[in-house]
């Protein structure tokens, strides 16, 4: 299931503005990689170029090479929707479909893939909700609107929706930044469990979170406003946090911890 991602010289633009430049890194399957760095250094941009969500914005484009287990996802004849099914995404703000019930939210992706059989959908929904540690909380109200859940539950619902289509990779863009500490803890536990099956990349502003959940950490930065973001250092998390190779990484990390 889980797959390896390789980025080689990835550069992404918003129109003429170059947001990230020459990102080269390999992300191993069944691991959690944290992307950290100051605001505006292009973490989200890089994340969104991995599942080709970047190009959804008008004028946005990506250069370089990005492969999923060796298959170039930007190749001409590649089906974008297949890429996105294989590389799921959880957004910063919980975004369940407001008109759909909890159940319909979870199976939305499956329905898009043409799964219609009720029993299959039921099983998949239960499995996804259980994986997202949400089943016990919602099993008696699957028909209720997804938007009626708490923020943390909504975010886990979104995770369930993402993993219901059984992607190989799950991208998370600051999935806890809109949540309270308890919900954050629940999601962190979940990430820890999910890495057995998926390749996970998580953008986070929270150092402790990166340290807690990730195996490897990539530090992005920009030298000055208007410059593109670059990958400064990518290494095992404990190394990044205790003995970083780059001075800039150390400055950033110590800046947080005093």
């Amino acid at each position, binding site marked *: 299931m889980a797959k390896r991602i390789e980025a080689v010289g990835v550069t992404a633009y918003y129109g003429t503005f170059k947001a990230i430049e020459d990102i080269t890194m390999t992300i191993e399957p069944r691991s959690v990689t944290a992307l950290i760095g100051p605001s505006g250094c292009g973490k989200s941009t890089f994340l969104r170029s991995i599942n080709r969500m970047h190009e959804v914005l008008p004028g946005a484009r990506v250069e370089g090479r990005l492969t999923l287990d060796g298959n170039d996802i930007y190749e001409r004849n590649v089906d974008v929707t297949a890429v996105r099914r294989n590389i799921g995404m959880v957004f910063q703000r919980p*975004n369940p479909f407001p008109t759909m019930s909890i159940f319909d939210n979870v199976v939305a992706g499956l329905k898009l893939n043409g799964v219609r059989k009720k029993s299959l959908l039921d099983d998949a929904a239960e499995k996804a909700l259980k994986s997202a540690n949400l089943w016990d909380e919602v099993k008696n109200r699957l028909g209720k609107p997804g*938007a009626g859940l708490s923020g943390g539950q909504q975010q886990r619902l979104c995770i369930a929706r993402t993993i219901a289509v059984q992607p190989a990779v799950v991208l998370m863009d600051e999935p806890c930044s809109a949540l309270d500490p308890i919900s954050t803890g629940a999601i962190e536990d979940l990430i820890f469990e999910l890495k057995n099956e998926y390749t996970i990349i998580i953008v986070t502003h929270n150092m402790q979170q990166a340290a807690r959940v990730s195996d490897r950490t990539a530090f992005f930065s920009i030298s000055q406003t208007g410059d593109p973001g670059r990958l400064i250092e990518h290494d095992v998390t404990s190394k990044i946090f205790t003995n970083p190779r780059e001075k800039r990484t150390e400055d950033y990390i110590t800046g*947080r911890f*005093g």
Partner: protein
Amino acid sequence: MNPPSLPGSTQSAEPPEREQSPWGPERRLPESTPAADAATTRAQEARVPVDLGRRKSLNGEKLFRWLTTGSGAAVLVIIVAIAVFLIAKAIPAIQGDKVNFLTEKTWQVPDRVFGVAALAFGTVYTAVIALIIAVPVALGIALCLSHYAHRTVATTLGFVIDLLAAVPSIVFGLWGREYLIDPVRDLSAWLHKYFGWIPIFGSDGPYGKSILLGSLVLAIMILPIITALSREVFQQTPKMNEEAALALGATKWEMIRTAVLPYGRPGLIAATILGLGRALGETIALAMTLGGTFVISWDVVEVGGNTIAANIANHFGEADDFGRGALIASGLVLFAITLVVNVTARVIIYRRREFRSAL
């Protein structure tokens, strides 16, 4: 944006200052600085001669309240007055009617034989056919404007469609009966030739001023309002929901089906009902393009068709006092139909409230 190399230059959960001054600056405010003392004294002094000011705005307040209450009451009085007037006019006509006003189809006021059955049927039927034509077209245009067309194209096209709404209905009526009638004749013949087995295209002529012609003109007239409203609703779809659908592997059309259409549904219903309301009340364009018969027929291509409003427009001028009463009575029936339609719409929208309020 701050240079990233500066420690703590970005917004962070735990600012470094916290380490140096763990209690924050406000803790260190000494209670006995001269400035603080002075402030305290001032506050104590100020407490004695309390001057809360006089309620200067009292009169304005009163006036405003009377004004709003008055206008509210005036509206009610006017509505009641209109209702009383209309009902007073209608009662003698209905009493003088030799047949049941609600079930009689013909309109022979001099013979005291008249009723709204055919007219009411025609009103609803014509409006519904117009909706069936207009709604898919309007949705298509609205989606195109909101999600497919390039911005400049969308703006221009949107403007042109809004212009349609500014055309007076008599112009539509004239255009319909002078120009659209010929293509509609051909279309009717074609529909009859190939789809004649469907009862609504059953008639073999003559074609011309028919429900089809009236509904087409009506459809064009209600197109702008439905398009404008649906477009508005579609554009309001949260970007994050559209992205959620795309990230699940939806194509653009699937994304629209998953995120945009369900989100816009209550709005689309409202837009459709507004269009229906307009269609039901449309008068002059239909008076000019319908055949003006008094039969109940599902056939849309044969010459014929009539509506309550069109019938009023066609007969009010020549009617005597009694005849006007009869027409007013039919107008009350139209009012009742519109009311039922609007209440139904509200019920439909209300039923989805559970999901709407969760937004």
